[in-house]
């Protein structure tokens, strides 16, 4: 790349934006973007398998302790979960739109959609923070540390209140915190990636000839949305 940059400088003409980003080991921009695309899809495939271990833990525990899952889901507020679903779907729309903007060279709209995606990702984590802190303040932690307070037990529906607190309630919440927590870490990583995209978009790196980073990050972001699509009914709507 440096060789190209210097040759461009010596002739006094700036290289067109896409060529600046062609790595030396690729023959053309097209070969580079096709390779990146396959790479990101392989990564997403490994992410699916990565999460499958936790979904298996969920499946095994639910198959053997269905009553516990029915009881424990009363501690989760489906309205918060539904709100976060709406937030993530909207952010996915914004992410998909940002790819379109980059492909069409609409720089202002690209910046706008990137900022919107970042803000919505932040909103998701703020909602999640309120959910987590409400639970932790009321003794709903993971494993053996799970001792629900009188205050939160009083908010359960009457049928659930009549039951004794199951001794393995903490195991349900271990699975809950692990799955939503790992998903939350993915959201955090996504936010970092969107900050990076914003910096590059601000420099004017992206356009019709070069939009692979915008596309790849959006693909990752859609996968994060997809995982939440499964987590929401499995935890909040048992």
């Amino acid at each position: 790349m440096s060789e190209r940059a210097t040759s461009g400088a010596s002739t006094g003409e700036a290289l067109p934006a896409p060529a600046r980003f062609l790595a030396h080991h690729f023959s053309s921009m097209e070969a580079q973007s096709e390779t990146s695309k396959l790479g990101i899809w392989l990564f997403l495939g490994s992410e699916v398998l990565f999460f499958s271990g936790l979904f298996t833990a969920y499946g095994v525990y639910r198959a053997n302790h269905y009553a516990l899952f029915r009881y424990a889901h009363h501690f989760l507020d489906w309205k918060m979960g539904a709100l976060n679903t709406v937030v993530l779907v909207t952010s996915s729309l914004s992410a998909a739109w940002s790819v379109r903007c980059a492909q069409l060279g609409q720089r202002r709209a690209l910046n706008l959609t990137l900022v919107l995606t970042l803000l919505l990702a932040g909103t998701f984590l703020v909602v999640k923070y309120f959910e987590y802190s409400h639970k932790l303040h009321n003794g709903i932690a993971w494993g053996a540390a799970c001792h629900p307070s009188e205050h939160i037990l009083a908010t359960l529906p009457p049928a659930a209140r009549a039951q004794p607190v199951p001794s393995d309630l903490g195991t349900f919440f271990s699975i809950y915190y692990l799955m939503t927590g790992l998903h939350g870490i993915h959201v955090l990583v996504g936010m970092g990636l969107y900050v990076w995209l914003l910096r590059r978009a601000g420099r004017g790196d992206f356009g019709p000839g070069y939009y692979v980073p915008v596309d790849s990050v959006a693909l990752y972001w859609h996968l994060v949305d997809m995982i939440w699509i499964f987590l929401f009914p499995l935890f909040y709507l048992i």
Partner: protein
Amino acid sequence: MNENSAGAAAPGSHGTHVMPPSVLIGTAAALLALTAVTVTSSRIDLGEWNVIVALAIACTKAALVALFFMHLKYENRFQLVVLVSAVVFAVLFVAFVVFDTTQYQPSIRAAERQVQAKSP
């Protein structure tokens, strides 16, 4: 739709498919509608079927995200092969382990009861 065909026909953009706004907004609207359906269906007691309905809706939503937001519908087939094979192996993993644990659960419970009966 005009912009779409213009984008697809742009010179030097082989393999590029610009998603038209109508498809993007339509996908998001379908996802939000299906979220409402899944919330509503969870309030109706269908017994064992509740989780099946919830998962069927979730799979439909995931397919919409993959096909349109992730533009898999317009990609090289190989990308689809990568995602589908990962999903197939994830489903096999979950299904086999769950079948296995439910298969042995009755005999484990019976053995536990026997041990409890022996130790008064």
